[in-house]
């Protein structure tokens, strides 16, 4: 058994366990508990050489630890970031952990004052994050209607029906490590249009029967309310229109949530987004969703969302627990999901709903455009391990930091089958269900114990 143990910075490896002046290393990896964010490794190193040589070697490591501490404070200059890299045996994957600082202490006399100056023993104390990430990411095989277990970029749609998928399926056994790990998502806008994509939403379903949970509710599938209108650009090929002129609170549509849907939801939380082809902007218009027993007892209701002056096509209706009671007991009584509008004047208000997306919040992330959006063939990179969120692939070369992330980056869970849903809006707010993209996902297996 032979282990590797190095410090690493900016493409350069600084070995702790081998080299001209190292003739022995004694190291037992430390593991913090789950509440600790950092741990300290103590590495005993025996050195040989002239006093000057040993001091020079120690000085290199000390400089790295100092720069690591500086990086931990500033977190700006990636080139200063120092990692401790290790593997416990040849053939194992190499893992790394961000160094947050450290110090070196002499266990023997310093060489220049030692009578036997050719040898010295030191302890390198390395303060690091309380987990290890694989140095090399694993591209996760993705599956949907467009490909099976592909590690290339896979197509996804901004709608989901018999000819479109707005998700990718992830097989749990492809996700290695023992902890949920950093996941890099590359999302490329492949719809050739001058109108750029805007905000992008990721929802990971790993708790709610990801293989079978029905995450889309088509407008045209409403049990009641409105009339169906064909539109080739809509999810399911149709939208559902309704015009409201009555004052007060009026139900626009309702859908039956079947026992199967509710059983699969398993009592988890979902953010529900509506994708509207048309949304009344008349003043004094508010909409919301609620869940009822047969339209009688309201079990759960969202917040009123004002629509007056709203320019987007996507409406965030808030978080709902599904079913709202009897968490994961199975055989849940069917319920109803209602969309209601409230107005204070009788001006005619047209609505045209494409679909509702039930976004699992097991892991959820919003990448909000802070201007300029995501052009055709431009890729949005969400790369938490390298603390990077940017777009690239513009006609002018270079990375553009024009997105901000809300919520933690998506983490894939080892061993957990899951489904990642996608939803995105346009830069101007226009309805873009017809848009397409490609997705590629890389995962850095993460462990607490090497």
């Amino acid at each position, binding site marked *: 058994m032979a282990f590797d143990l190095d410090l690493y910075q900016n493409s350069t490896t600084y070995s702790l366990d081998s080299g001209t002046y190292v003739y022995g290393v004694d190291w037992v990896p430390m593991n913090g508990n789950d509440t600790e964010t950092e741990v300290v490794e103590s590495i005993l190193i025996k050195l040989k050489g002239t006093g000057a040589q040993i001091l020079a070697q120690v000085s290199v490591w000390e400089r790295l630890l100092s720069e690591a501490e500086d990086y931990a*404070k*500033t*977190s*700006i200059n990636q080139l200063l970031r120092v990692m401790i890299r290790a593997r416990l045996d040849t053939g194992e994957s190499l893992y790394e952990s961000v160094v947050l600082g450290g110090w070196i202490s002499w266990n023997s006399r310093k060489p220049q004052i030692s009578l036997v100056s050719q040898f010295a023993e030191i302890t390198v104390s390395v303060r690091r994050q309380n987990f290890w990430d694989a140095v090399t990411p694993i591209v996760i095989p993705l599956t949907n209607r467009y490909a099976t277990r592909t590690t290339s970029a896979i197509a996804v749609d901004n709608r989901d029906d018999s000819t479109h998928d707005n998700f990718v399926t992830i097989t749990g056994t492809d996700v290695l490590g023992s902890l949920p790990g950093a996941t890099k998502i590359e999302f490329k806008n492949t719809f050739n249009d001058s109108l750029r994509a805007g905000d992008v939403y990721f929802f990971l379903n790993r708790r709610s029967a990801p293989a079978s949970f029905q995450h889309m509710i088509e407008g045209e599938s409403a049990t009641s309310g409105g009339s169906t209108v064909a539109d080739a650009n809509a999810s399911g090929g149709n939208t559902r229109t309704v015009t409201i002129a009555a004052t007060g609170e009026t139900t626009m549509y309702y859908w039956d949530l079947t026992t199967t849907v509710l059983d699969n939801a398993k*009592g988890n*939380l979902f*953010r529900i987004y509506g994708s509207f082809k048309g949304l009344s902007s008349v*003043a*004094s218009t*508010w909409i919301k969703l*609620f*869940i009822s027993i047969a339209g009688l*007892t*309201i*079990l*759960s*209701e969202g*917040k*009123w*969302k*004002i629509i*007056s*002056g*709203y320019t987007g096509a996507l409406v965030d209706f*808030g*978080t709902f*627990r599904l079913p*709202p*009671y009897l*968490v994961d007991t199975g055989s849940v009584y069917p319920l109803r999901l209602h969309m209601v509008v*409230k107005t*204070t004047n009788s001006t005619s208000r047209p609505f045209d709903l494409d679909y509702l997306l039930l976004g699992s*919040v097991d892991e*959820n992330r*919003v990448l*909000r455009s*802070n*201007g300029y959006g995501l052009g055709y063939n431009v890729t949005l990179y969400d790369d938490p391990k390298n*603390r990077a969120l940017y777009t690239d692939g513009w006609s002018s070369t270079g990375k553009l*930091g*024009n*997105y*901000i*992330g*809300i*919520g*933690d980056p998506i983490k894939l869970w080892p061993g957990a089958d899951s489904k990642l849903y996608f939803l995105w809006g346009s830069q101007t707010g226009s309805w873009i269900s017809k848009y397409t993209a490609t997705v590629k996902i890389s995962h850095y297996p993460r462990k607490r114990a090497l």
Partner: protein
Amino acid sequence: MRKFSIVMKDRKGNYINSDFTSLLQVIGFSKSAIGGPLWARLRMNSTNEDYAAELVNALRYPIEIYDVETGEKVWWGIVSEMRIPIGVGASFSIGLSLERLFNYVKIVYSYSPPGGGAAEYRETAWANDASSVTEYWRKEKIISSSASSDMAAASKRDTILAIGKVPTPKLDFSGLEFPEIDCIGYWETLSWVYYLHLAGVEANAAGGEEQDLGKIAGNTKIYQKIINNSGESWMAYNISIYASTFGTPTDNLIVQLCANNAGVPGTVLATATIPASEIESGTQKITKDFSTPVTFELATTYFLVVSRSGALSSVNHYKIGVDEGLSYTSGEMRLWNGSSWVTRVPDADLKFHLGGVYETSRQLTEVINESAQFDIGVEVTDASGLYSSQYRDGSRNAKEEAEELMITGTSGLVRYVGGVDEDLHVRIYAEPAEWIARSTASNIRMDKNGNIFGMVSNTPVPNCFCPVGVWCELVSRTPVVDAIQSTEDQFMFFIDSAEYNAEDDSYKPQPRASVSDIEQITGFGL
């Protein structure tokens, strides 16, 4: 510890794309049933001085707090104050705050005429700093001063503006280790502007002279021409004139609001009748409601006509207050001599006060619409059914005015609640009734450990949602709760405000304010 995502924008509305927001850790926040988000406190979990320096610019930056687990926006407002250690191990920190910033300043003072004479109330014009307003929004301050001259008052105003237009630093020696920032909800910024609403009053309060009415043919009637110059149409609701009796008249004084008919009174639009029994021998202000309120259209000429219902009498008639100083500039007063309208000698204007009313729900809408600097929409969803004067003289700020109207409530005897929602719209509605509380899904139950659940679904609600403006039922069966329930049937209370402590993920609701609290909030006695 529950995780939150912080989103900040700069003062131009651009998202802050900096790592320093990821270092901000939520300490806690609160919300109120009246106004929405109240305050939030965050700590920068780093001693990084570069980021601390970046933070210095963040005053009045919009800030949003998202619950990472659900993606829900749980708090929103602006950065109002920060305390930043000036370096690692420093013994003090520097604080910057919007609290003492003022970029619109006016002085009210008692003017003493040179050489003596009675002092008179005066106020300067507003002075402002446009750059400061652009950066920090309009923040007004009216200061009472002992200045006795126009020059001294203007000088004091300009000096205060020069000092107050930028955030002034203060030092804190409490040994703060990490930078902290305090935020306020958007509702609080309504207190930054005084609310002036001139519509609702057309008046001339000057003058102390009298004019006989109904004594002889030469003073059969009086008209005063008036024009609505307030900037908007409103409902004329009542009229005040100054009157006294001469002798013992027994008929009525009639005050009419008439349309314009080619420069003289035309169609009678509204009438107020004042019995002689309500008029005394000394001049007094008498106010009467019109039988039917009438729309007082913007920039339109009207006439107030005062007459008596009985016959002329030289021994029993009325005297009407007029102003020979001709202070009213929008129209003239004339006397009817039996055959034509003629100018009084000496000429005068009528002393009068035409008052208007709005439904208080409309007033509430207008207070917020006219004062909010963040707002892109306001909706009072339930009409109040109550009417009062919409006129405001600008002596109280918009938050005070709005909250008083909310607590006045509706004809259904309930307050208004609501405030700034997460889309920065203001939605205000009548406080929901207790009797429907148990069947309303948005209400909550709370157990003795402080965990909250949906009222109907009975499933957990994250504490960080910090619900306010809803009913809460305490469901734990303890002797204390039982004792209260025995008298109240159920331990149900309306949550007026609540605090969320992020450090222990706890939610602390407070029941509806007591009467004394309401008095304190609104500044008026009950």
